[in-house]
């Protein structure tokens, strides 16, 4: 028996309604899709993944399903940080060890950096983070400022959102927007209004976590519309497929937003399969699962298709901080990209 309020959304902390829990269960019941049906050589970019909280099994499964690159946006940790040192270590981690870890599975890892809207409400912390953020924003492999925007839509959130728009302009970086879970439609409109007010080019900005209620306005204003295929709470594969049937590929970007909660690191390839089953053309699928993400997150030149197309053998012996993620003598089996995944278990 699913009791409303018993399960909290791991992303926003809000209690899931019984309808949301039921949707989640029905979605899980129809999975896994047969990823073996993916055409050999299929390639996907998942432009919103919190890999820091995912396991090596996830990396293996993503590599097998054809995910060639992931973008890790800076966010909170499910609980607030208590000091700027924790923030520095987190940002160092996602530009450093997590990138190395992904590389061990043949996946290129990039990130976006920013002060998230939840922690913007801790003024002392926020001020200190704004002080160290520029140093991280200019780093190699950093594609954008993000994920930033509103959570409760407070005055402090507004102040630091605006400051970070200016930082993105100063450093010529795109922006990844986290739209609020509560009062979402108005919050999304307000986010775009502020971006426009600051003269930020919508073609350099992804508004993420869209749904049926927000997508029209986002696309009409010329922003990229991200959809997080996050079972139960944000957007399911079947709904996503309907949206692509309706809107086509222009401006639409799929991601898994996989993190520490009930989320699916294979959401992008699985949705691609579902779209193919519904007769959506391969070219459209490729746009929403690869090309569009590359177009906007490649704007500062730090993410290029050659990064994975021309990549050599994976150097499993490479050490980071004295640690290989492999145990002594171990060589992980990386299945061939796409197709041919054989009896790979997706759990």
């Amino acid at each position: 028996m699913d009791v409303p309020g018993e399960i909290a959304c791991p992303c926003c902390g809000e209690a899931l309604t019984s309808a949301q829990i039921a949707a989640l269960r029905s979605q899980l019941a129809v999975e896994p899709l047969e990823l073996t049906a993916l055409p050999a050589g299929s390639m996907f970019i998942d432009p919103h993944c919190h890999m820091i909280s995912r396991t090596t099994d996830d990396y293996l499964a993503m590599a097998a399903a054809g995910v060639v690159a992931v973008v890790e946006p800076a966010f909170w940790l499910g609980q607030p940080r208590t000091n700027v040192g924790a923030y520095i270590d987190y940002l160092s981690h996602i530009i450093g060890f997590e990138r190395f870890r992904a590389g061990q599975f043949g996946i290129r890892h990039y990130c976006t950096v920013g002060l998230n809207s939840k922690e913007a409400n801790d003024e002392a912390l926020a001020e200190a983070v704004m002080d160290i953020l520029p140093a991280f924003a200019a780093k190699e492999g950093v594609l954008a400022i993000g994920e930033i925007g509103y959570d409760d839509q407070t005055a402090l959130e507004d102040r630091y959102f605006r400051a970070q728009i200016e930082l993105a302009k100063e450093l010529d970086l795109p922006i990844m927007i986290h739209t609020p879970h509560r009062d979402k439609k108005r919050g999304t409109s307000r986010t775009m209004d502020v971006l426009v007010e600051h003269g930020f080019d919508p073609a350099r900005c992804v508004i993420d976590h869209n749904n049926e209620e927000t997508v029209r306005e986002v696309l009409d204003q010329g922003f990229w519309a991200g959809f997080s295929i996050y079972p139960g709470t944000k957007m399911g594969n079947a709904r996503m497929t309907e949206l692509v049937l309706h809107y086509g590929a222009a401006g639409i970007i799929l991601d898994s937003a996989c993190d520490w909660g009930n989320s699916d690191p294979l959401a992008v390839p699985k949705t691609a399969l579902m779209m193919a089953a519904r007769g959506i053309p391969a070219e459209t699928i490729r746009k929403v699962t690869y090309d569009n993400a590359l177009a906007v997150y490649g704007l500062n030149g730090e993410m290029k298709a050659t990064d994975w197309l021309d990549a050599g053998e994976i150097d499993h012996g490479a050490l980071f901080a004295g640690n290989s993620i492999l145990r002594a003598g171990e060589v992980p089996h990386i299945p061939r990209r796409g197709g041919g995944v054989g009896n790979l278990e997706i759990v």
Partner: protein
Amino acid sequence: MTPLALLTAWVARQADAQGNAWLGERRAALRARPDARMLAIALGLAPRKVGKAALDLSADDLAMAEQVRPGWLPQGLSLDQAARLTLLLEASVADDFPALLKRLLTTSDLAEQIALYRGLPLYPEPARLTLLAVEGLRSAVRGVFESVAHDNPFPAEHFSQEAWNQMLLKALFIGAALAPIVGLDRRWNADLAHMLLDYAAERAAAGRPISPELWRGIGRFADAAHIERLAGLLDSGDALERQAAALALNDAGPSGQARLRADQPEYARMIAANEIGWNAIGNRIKIS
């Protein structure tokens, strides 16, 4: 001529006009006001702006480097590293440059750390940066460790014997070569020889291999027991170990040399003919 002028010329002839313009403008801004935020951003952007190719250095360039800063070994620098060093050198006029570097290190990625440490021989008032250099050696990232330890005259010039000895032991421990350490043969000491022998015993007890370069620190402090040990290695080791044992015996004065001639006259001949040597062994280790 200064190291900064040399680096400037090397970057200028390889980077494109846009990259050079960007770097020149950032450097001028830092010269006017060595601001931490501005410096951190410029360091981060440098690879994107000027490129990451290897710096093309001729024999004349290297000779010039030796002339303007004896002991400086710029070979192996990349274009972005050289550009980063010009930015750091401009900012070295800051009131508290060590504090500025320390702050940079808290937010720098590995490539930035490596560039920063490769600049150690070039910064003003270097003695105040010794602790920072030692901190770099504590890194568990081999590339960062080697940016301080290898091809860098700073440790031999500024490290206490304790810090020097720790650097040598750690190099062996993480499998970094000893040969590229500048000033190696000037700073061997009895205390280090003692630690090296303890370490060798520990490795042997665990059935683990011992770097042939370890014996480079033993020969000149070898007593009769050590000479026995080295003579044993002459027969039992692999090719590099045998060469190392022969070289160590040769370093061990008349008694070691006599033992080498008696046991392995061919090695004695090869050493005299310069056919084997410590640096050649070190280079083999560096490659493997």
